[in-house]
């Protein structure tokens, strides 16, 4: 470990600080706080996508569906079944993990594009079930009156600022887990799978099991994000489980940087901001936003954080860094069909 502060750490610290201090700068601006809070719940789910796509290299398009399951578990349990929020959230997290694991058993039999489309179909089925199973989900009527998290001691979460900090806490947790995984043997395992399944197998990686676990873990994050989303919104409808949402999340992670620790946060907030900013153009905003997305994918295929990391890694000398700290120096390569290694933050 180096003792001086690496650029990645500094960047991370500043992002964290910005997020922590945001509410203080935004007093009386509940709208921005709301965008940030909702964005943070998305970002948590995007960390899940990062786990399966960014680290393990499997493009799962069922993610919006898993998010929706989390949303509806909390939504329905706290209203129709009158549960408290916390146990409902627990059930949402455990429930989506289980659903994710079981879905993974079947889905991971397929590979590459087939896996992508297969999971897209699963996502669509989840959406159809949620939007059509009237007697349970209330279909398009949605669920209103989702409970706030019950207060813990003096903390009353009906205050938007506290709610924000609560979600932020979970977000930091998700970021930390990603960081810890990323620099551990587990992360090495997943990245090995992403780079070459055959080689990973030959060094003794149980490819099937690890993909399975990564898939389940990714849905855990989706469920957590979804559960919090339900509480933040108070009202939920089927659009919280749509395939469109999956693609939005995919956009977040791509803009932020796949496989990086900070990518999901930066990407999510940046794209959401872009969307909000262009709201003033109403329907025509997509004439601008569409090409921006295309341009980002073409010119910054590794995402903002991926790019900054490469930049930082490039500038760093080949110092005595610990193995897992070494940055990626292949930024000049054209992205290959195998997802590239994007190291550390």
């Amino acid at each position, binding site marked *: 470990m180096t003792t001086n502060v690496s650029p990645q750490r500094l960047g991370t610290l500043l992002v964290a600080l910005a997020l922590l201090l945001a509410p203080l700068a935004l007093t009386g601006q509940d709208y921005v706080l709301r965008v940030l809070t909702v964005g943070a719940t998305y970002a948590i789910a995007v960390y899940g996508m990062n786990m399966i796509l960014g680290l393990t290299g499997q493009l799962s398009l069922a993610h919006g569906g898993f998010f929706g399951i989390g949303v509806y578990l909390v939504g329905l349990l706290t209203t129709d079944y009158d549960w408290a929020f916390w146990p409902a959230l627990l059930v949402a997290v455990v429930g989506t993990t289980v659903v994710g694991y079981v879905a993974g058993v079947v889905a991971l039999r397929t590979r590459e594009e087939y896996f992508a489309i297969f999971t897209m179909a699963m996502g669509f089925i989840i959406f159809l079930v949620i939007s059509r199973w009237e007697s349970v989900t209330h279909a398009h009527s949605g669920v209103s009156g989702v409970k706030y998290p019950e207060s813990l001691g003096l903390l009353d979460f009906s205050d938007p600022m506290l709610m924000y900090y609560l979600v932020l806490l979970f977000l930091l947790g998700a970021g930390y887990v990603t960081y810890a995984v990323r620099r551990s043997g*587990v992360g090495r395992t997943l990245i*090995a799978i992403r780079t070459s399944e055959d080689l990973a197998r030959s*060094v*003794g990686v149980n490819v099937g099991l690890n993909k399975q676990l990564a898939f389940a873990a990714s849905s855990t994050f989706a469920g957590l994000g979804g559960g919090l989303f339900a509480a933040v919104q108070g009202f939920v409808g089927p659009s919280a489980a749509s395939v469109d949402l999956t693609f939005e999340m995919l956009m977040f992670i791509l803009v932020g940087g796949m496989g990086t620790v900070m990518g999901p946060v930066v990407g999510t907030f940046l794209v959401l901001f872009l969307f909000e900013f262009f709201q003033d153009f109403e329907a025509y905003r997509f004439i601008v936003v569409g090409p921006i997305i295309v341009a980002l994918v073409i010119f910054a295929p590794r995402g903002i954080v991926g790019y900054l990391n490469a930049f930082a890694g490039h500038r760093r000398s080949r110092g005595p860094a610990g193995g897992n700290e070494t940055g990626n120096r292949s930024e000049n390569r054209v992205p290959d069909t195998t997802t590239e290694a994007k190291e550390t933050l």
Partner: protein
Amino acid sequence: MTLLEVRGLGKHFAGLHAVDDVDLDISAGEITAIIGPNGAGKSTLFNLLAGFYRPTSGTVRFKDRDVTGMSPHRTVAHGIARTFQTTNLFEDATVLENVLSGRIVRSHSTVFDAVLRSPRHRREERRNLDRAMDALEFTAIADYRDEIASRVPQEVQKRVSIALALATDPELLLLDEPAAGLTEEETGGFAQLIRSIVASGVTVGLVEHRMSMVMSLADHILVLDHGKEIASGTPETVRTDPQVIEAYLGAGHHEQEGTG
């Protein structure tokens, strides 16, 4: 002592007998070479031993344990490591990271250890780093550890793949044409490396085309042709075996890459 015992092993692909009724004993502490013309089934045999293919008949026993048809992640855990004929590395990762990935199979800490940074996890990470560095030094490429794997010279890449295999702490190392495409001089270095691997207590199985290298290195040789064993024994016996000579002459020039 017989480390690996193969009896009646066969693999059929859609009507083709890639490996047919092969017996093989690999003794601990020796170098056993498998030779034969192109398409003889050498690589297929390796794939069967390492669990990449499931045999259609026969048994493989490793350290008196039946490992027939066991998936690769389990054979590696039991101590069988292998390299590939065409160098196969995590190309975008550094040399050290590549070798570290060989430690995955020996790691027991879980996601929770990683998240909680448990003492076990830290101990293990340290040990993994040490073992990886050992492997790099053993293969004499420690200087390249922070280079991106795809950007180092070919010879180094080949050494990385051996270091990667060694990092899994194998008892049996299966090398599939480790010196293919190298110069005469580099090949000499590799022969030296293989000897030192055996000296360090790891048994070696070797698929190789270069007769000179095989004859000078191997303690025991198995000759395959069309998936069948045509001869086996010491280099001396094999060299003079008429069937071997015929197979090699009949197969013509054999100094090429092939899928064995």
